[in-house]
């Protein structure tokens, strides 16, 4: 018996999905080619999608290439994850005005907007789930994040092609979108397998009146997703985390990587899970009003490590070590899950191509110096 949630849509009819989402009041957002990569833009027509293009990603390098094929979702991803939709890069938190007997503060929680993001990858969805844990925890729910999250409708695309920088398979986050999506598409030549993953998704699906997906399409889609997982050349060996990375605190490899790291913040900006932010006051010259603004910040800036009277992470080594240890190890202690989803963006968008899948194994291999100490201790029976 065919799964009721699995339907078939000819790729040439994808516009119907966009139209249905529009009718349901969603602003439809999808990856569009701009400045040599893809970025999220509001689109109304399938023609705005980068059809026939693929991305090639390597450490520190991103290129778009035309394939001549009619592939709709040939590009895996650009620099942006889902993060900007829920955790805005810059947003006012409070509007404060001077009044006769003090001041008034007005909250600036944005109205919830219905946004459908088409082309979300499994890694980004995993990133969204992690950010949900951080921003929507019961006690400290972030109302700004919550308002944006409420209106989000996710149309995921299962990956059938892996980039050289992908390692979601080893992080158990992809290439298939598992949950938290509203609809998931798998592109198989000129057909799209459509799966509903939520009630909202089922509603959209029922509006489309699509025939059930034939078993052959379901099987072919699964085969291609599996092949994508197997084709990934990078992986992150997690079995000894978090403790092994804590033990590597004094490893000389931190010095080597710090020699390359620019502390430019790009890795944290493109990371789907990094949530650090700064708040700044922007008073006007007449001192009558000010806006309390939150903006993306990074643990790689000098300022971020500054506490009263002291910078606790002055050097680039301190900052890189803090970032990687948090992302891959202490995140697990803090949130019960790894902070890395294996999207590979930090590898691609690092201007000097630092690759965490290369750094981690190096850090977990005892250094020459440490091996000598260990041998000496063994020899002396201690």
């Amino acid at each position, binding site marked *: 018996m065919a799964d009721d949630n699995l339907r078939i849509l000819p790729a040439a009819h994808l516009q119907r999905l966009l139209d249905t989402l529009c009718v349901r009041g969603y602003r439809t957002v999808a990856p569009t080619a701009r400045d040599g990569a893809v970025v999220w833009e509001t689109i109304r027509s399938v023609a705005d999608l980068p059809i026939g293009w693929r991305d090639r990603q390597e450490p520190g390098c991103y290129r778009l290439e035309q394939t001549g094929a009619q592939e709709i979702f040939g590009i895996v991803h650009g620099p942006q994850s889902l993060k900007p939709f829920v955790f805005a890069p810059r947003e006012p938190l409070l509007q404060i005005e001077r009044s006769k007997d003090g001041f008034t503060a007005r909250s600036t929680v944005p109205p919830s907007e219905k946004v459908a993001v088409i082309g979300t990858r499994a890694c980004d969805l995993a990133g969204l789930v992690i950010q949900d844990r951080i921003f929507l925890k019961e006690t400290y729910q972030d109302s700004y994040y919550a308002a944006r999250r409420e209106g989000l409708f996710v149309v995921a695309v299962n990956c059938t092609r892996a980039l050289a920088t992908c390692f979601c398979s080893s992080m158990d986050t992809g290439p298939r979108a598992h949950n938290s999506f509203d609809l998931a598409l798998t592109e198989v030549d000129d057909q799209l397998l459509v799966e509903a993953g939520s009630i909202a998704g089922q509603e959209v699906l029922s509006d489309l009146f699509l025939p059930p997906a034939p078993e052959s399409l379901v099987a072919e889609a699964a085969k291609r997703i599996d092949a994508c997982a197997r084709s990934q050349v990078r992986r992150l060996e997690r079995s000894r985390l978090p403790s092994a990375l804590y033990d590597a605190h004094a490893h000389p490899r931190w010095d080597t990587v710090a*020699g390359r790291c620019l502390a430019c913040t790009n890795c944290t900006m493109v990371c789907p899970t990094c949530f650090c932010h700064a708040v700044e006051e922007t008073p006007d010259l007449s*001192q009558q009003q000010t806006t309390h603004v939150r903006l993306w910040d990074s643990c790689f800036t000098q300022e971020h490590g500054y506490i009263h009277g002291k910078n606790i992470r002055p050097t680039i080594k301190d900052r890189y070590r803090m970032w990687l240890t948090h992302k891959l190890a202490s995140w697990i202690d803090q949130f019960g899950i790894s902070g890395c989803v294996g999207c590979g963006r930090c590898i691609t968008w690092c201007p000097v191509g630092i690759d965490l899948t290369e750094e981690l194994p190096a850090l977990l291999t005892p250094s020459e110096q440490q091996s000598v100490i260990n041998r000496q201790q063994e020899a002396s029976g201690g």
Partner: protein
Amino acid sequence: MAVFKFASCDGCQLSILNLEEDLLALGQALDIVYFPEASSAMRPGPYDIALVEGSITTAEDARRILTVRQQTKRLITIGACATAGGIQALRNWADVESFKQVVYPSPEFIQSLSTSTPISEHVHVDFELWGCPIDKTQLLRVLTDLVSGVQLRLPGDSVCLECKRRGNVCVLVAKGLPCLGPVTRTGCGAICPSMGRDCYGCFGPTEGGRKGPGFPPNTDSLAVRFHDDLQLIPIEVLRRFRGINGYADAFKQEGEKWERKK
């Protein structure tokens, strides 16, 4: 408040005039008593605030900046010239005498030092505004903080942070352009990368001229990337760093390293 000019193009002073409607609020919050670029009514010091544009390139200016300092409570440099010597600091690696011979019909009338140096090499500077020209929003923020009596602060982070907040695609990674953004201080709003071109460092090194552990920025790693992967030859790497802020310590040292490799 007073505004002084030394060796410069006046672009930073124009940034003050470009404040437009905010100028009215500025005029109410501060008494602008000396600003020859804007008004011929010039009142003598002492001054609470002096904004200083331009670098020191003549013996006379080297003396004049001392008198400005003596009359001023808070001296703030505005722009790359005043803060780091400016583009004219390229003379610091050249033979100024030969320039004079080539450019001027009567070079004997030119009274010029062989160097262009930032104001901070001559007198104590209370705060520095970087940029070529300065960003008017940053200027307004500093003046607002001065009026409010709070500590003056501007972000010292890289241009990359602002690029990513704006949703720009990285020109270095996606186009292979030798962008100085990763080691350049934010403040411009990432104008050049937003227009698809590479940053040329007009806001100087990240964190300005601060010294200590973690400073200056890792220009070495970026320069190696330009050379090894983006195929810049040493003189091209040198020219990336020896530009508008070429005399700022971090860029100066990186430039000199590549000069030796030429």
